């Protein structure tokens, strides 16, 4: 957030002038308006409360305005201020007035205000620069308010995310536990799935937004395998930016497909290969299509009962794309085809 320049008056709030004498009110408002400040004038207690509720940036009062009723109305307004607010108030005192006593009285009557005193007669330059600096102080207070609101919003969002992540981890654990046949197997699968979740989270964070590209998901999923010698995973497609949710789902799906391929599929044999390709249709509405194709592995047989991976792929890809994927256990290799409207999954950086 940049500080507004003094000449950028459009960003400033208006000045509320409270002057019982019509000539004073006209003189002051003319003086301020000549410097492009916005001014609202009120002559007394009657519409003061309404004028204060319009949130002026600065209140400017003449000595005559300081009646007990006005003091009370302003005190009530100040008491209702939010925590960030410290209303600037400029008071024009008469020459020869006991200013020490008045200042003490006002500082007592109006706590949480930022008071500025001038003696009449006052030059335009003096008054305007005082009012402008009070308006700028008010603007900074509003910045503080915006920061506070943003922090509240961030804390709420953080709580929501943490809850969601814990729920996801619980779900992953429960689902992994169901399919597990041994403690070691459970530990390995659980670690792998959490690792996939962690990596996609980091990628979304790096992207500095709520998005991640398919290309990034492909590298974060396959690179660790490639580093340990699984160079037989070929992947390619155009740049497609996914939302955080869609990206997370895709990362977990590719993790399931990869680990399955390493354990039982094409990557369990040195000559086996995997191709993951994706494309986007030219015509509207644009569709995203993705294909996972294994070849060269051991002969594939359709399992008698769908395992965790298959059930997860079906559920997750249908939820993500709105259409169930086509998973076929071709004898030559597993094939998984998924597609749906790009608008469902696309992320807006």
């Amino acid at each position: 957030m940049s500080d507004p320049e003094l000449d950028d008056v459009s960003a400033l709030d208006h000045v509320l002038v409270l002057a019982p004498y019509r000539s004073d009110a006209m003189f002051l408002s003319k003086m301020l308006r000549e410097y492009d400040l916005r001014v609202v004038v009120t002559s007394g207690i009657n519409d003061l409360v309404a004028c204060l509720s319009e949130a002026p940036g600065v209140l400017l009062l003449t000595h005559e305005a300081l009646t007990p009723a006005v003091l009370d109305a302003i005190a009530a307004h100040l008491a209702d201020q939010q925590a960030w607010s410290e209303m600037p108030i400029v008071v024009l005192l008469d020459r020869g007035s006991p200013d020490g006593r008045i200042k003490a009285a006002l500082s007592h009557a109006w706590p949480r205000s930022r008071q500025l005193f001038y003696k009449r007669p006052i030059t335009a330059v003096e008054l305007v620069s005082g009012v402008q600096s009070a308006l700028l102080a008010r603007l900074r207070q509003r910045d503080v308010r915006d920061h506070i609101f943003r922090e509240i919003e961030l804390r709420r969002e953080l709580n929501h995310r943490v809850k969601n992540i814990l729920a996801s981890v619980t779900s992953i654990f429960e689902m992994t536990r169901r399919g597990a046949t041994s403690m070691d197997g459970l530990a390995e699968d659980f670690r792998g799935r959490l690792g996939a979740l962690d990596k996609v989270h980091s990628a979304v964070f790096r992207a500095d937004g709520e998005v991640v590209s398919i290309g990034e998901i492909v590298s974060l999923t396959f690179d660790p395998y490639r580093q340990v010698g699984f160079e037989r995973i070929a992947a390619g497609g155009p740049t497609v930016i996914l939302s955080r949710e869609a990206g997370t789902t895709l990362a977990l799906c590719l993790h399931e497909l990869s680990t399955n391929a390493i354990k039982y599929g094409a990557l369990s044999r040195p000559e086996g290969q995997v191709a993951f390709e994706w494309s986007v249709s030219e015509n509207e509405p644009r569709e995203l299509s993705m294909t996972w194709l294994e070849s060269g592995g051991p002969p594939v047989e359709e399992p008698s009962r769908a395992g965790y991976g298959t059930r997860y792929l079906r559920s997750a890809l249908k939820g993500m794309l709105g259409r169930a994927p086509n998973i076929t256990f071709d004898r030559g290799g597993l094939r998984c085809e998924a597609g749906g409207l790009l608008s469902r999954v696309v992320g807006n950086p």
Partner: protein
Amino acid sequence: MIVFHVEQMIEDLGHVFAGSFESFEALKAECEGMTFDGALIDIDLTDGRTGPLAAEWLHRRGIPSMFLTGQADVASGYGHVSLGTLSKPVGMDKLAEALELFRRKPGPDPHD
């Protein structure tokens, strides 16, 4: 992942998982023609804090719902359009109770 887990639990409990939507917009656009006896709804969906709107929308169509959310405090303000709130993460027992509610309780009167 959470949806998948809930889906598996729903099926384990002998019910049918009809489908899931990530946003209120998607629900409105795509649920026509689907039949289901109840809905589990989070407070924040991908199109914002639209869970309560979704619950109200279903309520007007006579379909009961429960919130499944980490934000029970927010959900509690919408008791008039839902049967209650399940805290995330939900276990089998609580989910079973909720699904029984859908089974027993006919949807709210859409004209009330």
